[in-house]
């Protein structure tokens, strides 16, 4: 229930109870968003295998020198993504947390975000102030998006290998994400995907919201995504 939605008449004989105070914020740091008081939280979602973990790894490599970073992963099988990041040494282990999702990453990033908020709180408690926290959702489907109670901005990653129809199909990830990344452009000729079609459909679905094309094979520093994130700070 939203604190603003509870207004009602009190009957004479009802059980005494309390109401949400409009000033109460269970994840208090959120109130300071954009004031430089706390990290910008960026959700990274998208279908299975589109390159979310590869993008997180690229961003960490490219930004860890000058920004204070941490990562939270939400995997279907516990720690696969976190293990990949650890194995590749993109960040020290204490900056990476894996959240268990009970088969449903989309529940943990949208409907019941508490485990993710716990993970963020623990990272901030143990590491001190941070600049950017990347929250990766386990690959789910085109409808999985992040709750605004968890993140400030979200990136949706699709790949050309999924077919150039994906932007046209839409869904909340494609239409409403703050940044749409169309990854693996190096594979476009191999799978017969037409990037111009994807660009046109993405613009039609997204209006003024930005879309970038990326190949992590050709651009391991994920330059356009990095620039977009730096632009938020």
């Amino acid at each position, binding site marked *: 229930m939203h604190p603003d939605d509870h207004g009602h008449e009190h009957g004479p004989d009802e*059980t005494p109870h309390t109401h949400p105070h409009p000033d109460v914020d*269970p994840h208090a740091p959120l109130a300071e968003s954009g004031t430089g008081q706390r990290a910008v939280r960026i959700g990274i979602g998208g279908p299975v295998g589109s390159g979310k973990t590869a993008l997180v790894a690229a961003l960490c490599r490219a930004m860890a020198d000058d920004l204070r970073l941490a990562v939270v992963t939400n995997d279907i*099988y*516990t720690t696969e993504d976190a293990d990949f990041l650890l194995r590749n040494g993109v960040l020290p282990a204490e900056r990476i947390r894996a959240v268990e*999702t*009970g*088969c*449903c990453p989309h529940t943990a990033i949208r409907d019941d975000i508490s485990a993710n908020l716990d993970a963020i709180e623990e990272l901030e408690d143990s590491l001190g102030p941070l600049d950017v926290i990347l929250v990766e959702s386990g690959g789910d489907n085109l409808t999985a998006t992040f709750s605004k109670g968890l993140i400030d901005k979200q990136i949706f990653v699709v790949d050309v290998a999924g077919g150039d129809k994906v932007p046209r199909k839409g869904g909340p990830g494609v239409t409403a994400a703050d940044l749409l990344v169309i990854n693996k452009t190096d594979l476009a000729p191999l799978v017969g995907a037409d990037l111009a079609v994807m660009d046109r459909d993405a613009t039609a679905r997204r209006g003024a919201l930005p879309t970038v094309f990326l190949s992590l094979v050709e651009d391991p520093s994920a330059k356009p995504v990095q620039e977009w994130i730096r632009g938020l700070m």
Partner: protein
Amino acid sequence: MKAQLLILADGRFPSGGHAHSGGLEAAVVRKRVSDLDSLRRFLIGRLYTSGLVGAAFAAAACADPGSMDGIDEELDARTPSPALRLASRRQGRSLWRAAAVVWPGPHVTKAGAVRKGLHQPVALGVVAEAAGCTPGESAAISAYHAVSGPASAAVRLLGLDPYQVHGLIAALGDDIDRVAQAATEAARGPAADLPAASSPLLDVSAEDHAAWEVRLFAS
């Protein structure tokens, strides 16, 4: 009818429970639960042991939320498995997060100061009191969740027919009522005398489960 009670009991209430199977995942992977009948036996075992303890602690914390710290300590003493202690405290913390917005109040605020989280049943009692529920209602919610959590995990892990699983939960209704009743009565005494029924296999398999590399649920 008490709407607040229904809101708190609703499986959709965002309190972190969806990521926990109540020991069911370990039981499924070790082939102890594979169908409706073995699920039924698992649920009964859980209800009358850790379910009873949880319900009694929920009732006790609801009756006297000011004593949450001492009650929490008593439940810690009844939770030998470190993995289950952690799972319980995480869920208590998650429940607090939701309650801090939905039913804020002095006791809920105090519970928030426990960064590692109160044990889930203790948090439930504190939150239930803030929501205007009675100790008996707190016990009923806790006993019901002791069954409904693993049952919904069974639907996901074993692909059991969801209608049949809910038929099973409904058939356990009298048992849930009985446990809630016993828990409410037990909670009238001092915290040190609260029930201490144990389920050693759940404790042992929780430790086993926590060490797996691949698992779907946090506990």
